[in-house]
């Protein structure tokens, strides 16, 4: 059934408190745009997709955003299923946003597959005057919760905005075992319900 070159799927999630700029980072990475007036919640798409060829191998990167379900901490456990990597994003100009991160690490620990790779991101470095979290604090938190990398970004000014995505994809591809998380059986066992229904063939040929 498999076509000759079926891209390898990489699933990456963004999580973190409301208004930390998850969607802006995502848009900056996928479309290279920034929409300052874009309001609070994430609208319209289930996931964004980016196809990439890395070392001549085809990848399909699926980037899932929280769809506003982070607002009351009601992300579904199925959101985390099969994730290879997670970006945990807070706002460096909002202390509470930073202080909520241990809860987000805990939620990832609870629902995401074991062995999922995590990167901590302090966003909105353009707000220098309002900075409420030191970079060293972010660094420390990332170490404490086993994030493989920490970076500060600005989706607005592009400052390091693509780095967390690239580092995460790089790590997922190059860390042994990171691609096989949460895949207990071969995909071939799955039934394709979008396939054209077969004619009565296997049915009752009475």
């Amino acid at each position: 059934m498999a076509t000759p070159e079926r891209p390898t799927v990489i699933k990456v999630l963004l999580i973190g408190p409301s208004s930390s700029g998850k969607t802006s980072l995502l848009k900056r990475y996928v479309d290279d745009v920034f929409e300052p007036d874009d309001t609070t919640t994430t609208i319209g798409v289930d996931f964004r997709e980016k196809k990439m060829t890395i070392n001549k191998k085809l990848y399909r990167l699926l980037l899932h955003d929280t769809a506003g379900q982070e607002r009351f901490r009601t992300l579904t456990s199925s959101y985390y299923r099969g994730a290879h990597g997670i970006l945990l994003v807070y706002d460096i100009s909002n202390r509470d946003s930073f202080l909520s991160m241990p809860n987000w690490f805990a939620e990832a620990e609870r629902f995401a597959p074991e062995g999922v790779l995590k990167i901590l991101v302090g966003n909105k470095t353009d707000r220098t005057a309002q900075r409420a979290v030191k970079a060293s604090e972010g660094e420390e938190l990332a170490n404490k919760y086993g994030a493989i990398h920490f970076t500060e970004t600005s989706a607005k000014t592009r400052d390091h905005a693509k780095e967390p995505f690239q580092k995460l994809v790089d790590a997922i591809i190059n860390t042994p075992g990171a691609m096989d998380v949460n895949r207990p059986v071969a995909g071939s066992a799955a039934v394709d319900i979008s396939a054209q229904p077969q004619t009565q063939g296997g049915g009752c040929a009475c």
Partner: protein
Amino acid sequence: MNIQSLDKTTWDAVIVGTGLRESLLAAALARAGKRVLHLDKNPYYGDEYAAFSGNEFETWVKNAQAAGLQVVDYFVVDQSESSIKAKSRSYTLNLSPGLLYTTSPLLSLLVASNLNESLEFLKVGGWFVYNPSQGIDGSLVSVPNSREDVFNDQTLDARSKRLVVRALKSILGLEGSPSANSSAHQSSLKDYLEQPSFRLPNQTIAAFASLTLRHDRLSEIPFEEAERDIRRHFGSIGRFGPGFAAVVSRYGSGSELVQVFCRAAAVTGNAIYMLENTIISIQGRAPRPNWKAEEGHKSAENTRSQGFQLRLQSGDLVWAENLIATKHNLPIDTTPLGDLPVSIAEDAFWTSLYIVSNPLRSIFRTNEPPAPAGVVVYIPSGSLAEDESRNSYPIYICIHSSETGECPDGQCIMYISTKGDERKFLDVAAKSLLRKMPREDGSPSQILMSVKFKTLVESPLAERRTDGLHLLANHGPLIEIQDEIVDQVIDIYDSIVGSRETFMEKLESEDPGDVRDDTEISFEGAS
């Protein structure tokens, strides 16, 4: 924006409870541009369709017992309690098996609304009749899927095979069959199958009955309905591959569907989700108040002046034009029911979940790989004995392998259900079947944990409606996720949106999610 408060917000619909009907409705309304507040009193999604890790399940049991709302029987082998806890996350324990026929309108709906990619479906491959009163050898018999199966069946002699095929043709309304006499349509399944001209062996009668997924006695099943069920079964075989009529979603169909629909609702930006919050009182009906619309969302069109003032557990006061919930999710003493009946006819069932220390590989065997992840076993009424009584209703056992992600390798999950108050036969059924299937090393299979709970099902399923209040019938999913659910939800959608055609339409494709960048990247350090 005050992200914590919903105080003084207005909504086109407030939906309480995140069961399957409520979640599908939330997704459909949100896609149609309606503003939806979706609440659940529990800290988890799914209501009667929920699924839990090992630890969460124990909490659910204890809470259910403490609340006294549901009779719950809990049994766990001492030494396995710690191993279930240690492997808590290897379990996804569902409150129901969530079988979906391949012809289920839910499956086509998922594909039509672009939501199927979030789910993975697995085969439910075998139907069996288990009748321990027939002697240990002939007791577990596979139900034929086709005429070929009937002819290959070693347990039938040539004459019986002809009779079975004739009866099958008759039920399916195929050519050459004795035209289903008009009286058949008023009779019961029992009368129909036992009619003298069929001369069917008992085992075949049970096989036909097993395909209905009904817990009633044969004499209580109207033939017309059974005929529909059996035709659906055969009509479903082969739809997505040979040899199987049904599927389950990995991790549990009900709980996964609920989460997919809730996320689909949230993704539109029109639905807000809150768990551990519910309506504590309904403060009467009132016109849409002139509250400031929630920041970031324009106020919805005022289509009807009257709605409900609702006080939430969080303390917030909200207004809803439509209110949708089952009665157990509403403060029924303050609900303006008009002349709606609070209670309608209810049937009681016992449903249960068993974790078994045996993968039961032999029952998942198939001639058409891959192996199924689920099978259905039917135990006819009267075939189990305990304390000198016999089960008066049939019993169904749905067995799910570890392929479903519901349990670790080397184990399986059995969902056992029956009607009425015959709880004791659930254990009898489980133990009897396991005695028949010892582990591959010959040691006995063990029940590591079991939970039995009583489920009340109101009928009919259709919602009762008055002035913006949509009271859903209490509904416990037993074996399959019922096809009627979709129609029921479309009815409610229609009454709110005024259209059936727009139900769960694909989103407009300004959708930048479809942008396919083909980026050539090579990372430094990548070999």
